[in-house]
């Protein structure tokens, strides 16, 4: 019966809690601050990481799906630099090695060879680009390996590679710069004084991390090696698995065959790196996990401190309002009425703080990522709910003792209290 009455009066306890917070506005705001900071810390970091993750997950698909990538050193090197020398000293991957790997691979859909160099100026008659165009050498499978699409014109064919023809496929940025009004197909562009006939134009890919992904020229890998290779040029090999099921098996085959190509003995470790999109995402994941853990730890500490602050304020509040509690009890408030009133007040304080923290965190987190990327905003809903849940939890944990103390006060003594 009394439990039922408590539920009936829950709505009013709710109102009373709001009234109490409003009546002690400054004190309430100061108490909120701790919670705001704690929640803000975790939500802003999680939002920033989430936006980066979503952009990287899409951005890292540079290799296309089901692609296994072989090169001399790892694609992503985050943190530890001590291995850099080791990677550098590995022998380069040559075109001959890539052809040998292609001949040996049985389970692959294709084996494509790639390399690129940046900072080139492309000219067409009087027009020229800025000296920031990337020139990539590739074979007939290269556009699949690079995850780009031919817009119009033709792809490279076997003979283009075989004879090292001086032909090119253009990215949209280069097309817009050099051929604002004309059809580029059949025209002759020059790179480093060498002329190339344009045979095709690639579809626009857009920006990532504020950088255009369309500022490139593709030429046959053999031509590339002839004119652009350096002493340190080491090629990248992309191997496409026929489907997702065979992916792991193909990856293993690539590793095994590459060891043979590289002439490694059974005791020697790989002197090349085999990567895939998942592996890259995993690498990034292990990097962000550290940040998440740190933000989590900071938040937990901030929230516990904030919780103690709430408890402190609630204890002061109970002492300050002994008389009020006495009056309420005299006119019929039960223990539970008082308990719920003070408990709800604590929960409310922390929840309001939580909501403000979430709003600030989502806002700032998105602003941080907007500096790096132009992707759309992200609200990490799961963390929003976790944050608000944790806030209510803190309100209850740190509010229960003061509320219990208030509820247990003797009505006669409370009434007499001045």
């Amino acid at each position, binding site marked *: 019966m009394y439990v*039922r009455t408590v539920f*009936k009066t829950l709505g009013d306890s709710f109102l009373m809690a709001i009234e109490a917070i409003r009546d002690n506005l400054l004190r309430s705001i100061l108490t909120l601050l701790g919670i705001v900071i704690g929640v803000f810390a975790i939500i802003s970091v999680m939002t920033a990481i989430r936006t980066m993750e979503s952009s990287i997950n899409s951005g890292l698909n540079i290799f296309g799906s089901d692609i296994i990538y072989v090169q001399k050193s790892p694609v992503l090197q985050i943190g530890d630099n001590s291995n850099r020398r080791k990677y550098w000293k590995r022998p380069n991957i040559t075109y001959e090695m890539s052809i040998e790997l292609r001949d040996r691979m049985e389970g692959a859909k294709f084996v494509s060879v790639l390399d690129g160099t940046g900072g080139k100026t492309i000219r067409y008659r009087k027009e020229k680009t800025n000296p920031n165009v990337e020139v990539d050498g590739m074979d007939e499978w290269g556009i699949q390996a690079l995850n780009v699409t031919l817009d119009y014109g033709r792809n490279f064919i076997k003979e283009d590679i075989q004879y090292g023809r001086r032909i090119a496929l253009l990215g949209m940025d280069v097309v817009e710069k050099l051929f604002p009004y004309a059809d580029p197909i059949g025209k002759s562009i020059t790179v480093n004084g060498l002329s190339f006939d344009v045979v095709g134009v690639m579809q626009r890919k857009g920006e990532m991390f504020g950088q255009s992904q369309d500022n490139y020229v593709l030429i046959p890998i053999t031509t590339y090696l002839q004119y652009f290779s350096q002493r340190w040029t080491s090629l990248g090999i992309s191997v496409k698995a026929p489907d997702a099921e065979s992916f792991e098996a193909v990856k293993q085959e690539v590793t095994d065959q590459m060891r043979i190509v590289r002439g490694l003995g059974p005791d020697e470790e790989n002197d090349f790196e085999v990567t895939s999109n998942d592996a890259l995402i995993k690498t990034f994941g292990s990097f962000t996990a550290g940040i998440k853990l740190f933000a989590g730890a900071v938040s937990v500490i901030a929230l516990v401190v904030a919780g103690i602050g709430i408890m402190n304020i609630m204890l002061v509040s109970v002492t300050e309002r002994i008389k009020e509690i006495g009056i309420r009890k*005299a*006119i019929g*408030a039960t*223990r539970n009425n008082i308990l719920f009133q003070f408990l709800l007040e604590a929960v409310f304080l922390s929840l309001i703080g939580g909501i403000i923290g979430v709003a600030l965190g989502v806002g700032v987190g998105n602003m941080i990522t907007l500096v790096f990327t132009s992707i759309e905003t992200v609200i990490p809903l799961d963390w929003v709910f976790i944050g608000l849940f944790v806030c209510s939890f803190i309100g209850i944990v740190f509010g229960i003792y003061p509320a219990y103390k208030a509820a247990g006060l003797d009505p*006669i003594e409370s*009434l007499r209290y001045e």
Partner: protein
Amino acid sequence: MPLIQVKDLYKIYQMGNTEVRALDGVSLSIEKNEYVSIMGPSGSGKSTLMNLLGCLDTPSSGDFYMDGINVATMTDNELAHIRNKKIGFVFQTFNLLPKSTSLRNVELPLIYNGEVKAQFRKDLAMKALNRVNLGDRVGHKPNELSGGQRQRVAIARALVNDPAIILADEPTGNLDSKTGEEIMALFDDLHALGNTIILVTHEEYIAEHAQRIVRLLDGKIAVDELTKKKKK
């Protein structure tokens, strides 16, 4: 059956090694619509008796029937409900919630009542405020009201749950004599309307408003007499 029936009521406090008998075997019955003053010097057990009658406390031993219910053995929660529904308190220091309006103060017992739906509360509170002629002060907070007005808000709050008894503890103690008389006139009116009123006071002329005076001394009832008003 009387509205209040108290039999052999003891309230004993242990203070160190000495036993203090705040109430030392009090028996008393009060009928419906009676108007009773309880008097006595400080330390006579007056406050203790009033706390027991107001169900703020339970006796060490003895029986206490209110409206036929034995209150002496009730739990805290049950006492809270009795206080809410059967008793209307009026205090010397008014004891209003300082940051709430008159209306909100009067509404409060209805909230703890739990059986009055929210939409009827305001009407009932307004009615109670009108009864004490404060219908035009509903939005005022206690510090915007005079002492007499504050006490009238407190009386409205005591009336709002339609209690069996109104228990007033020195209701004029903080008021000047003129305002005090106005408040006493209000109690006289309430009595005339059929309410049962118990008045705790040490002022003889205030006590004279009642029909009956119970005088306590050393935890016992020394005198239980009818006033001139009743004799008339």
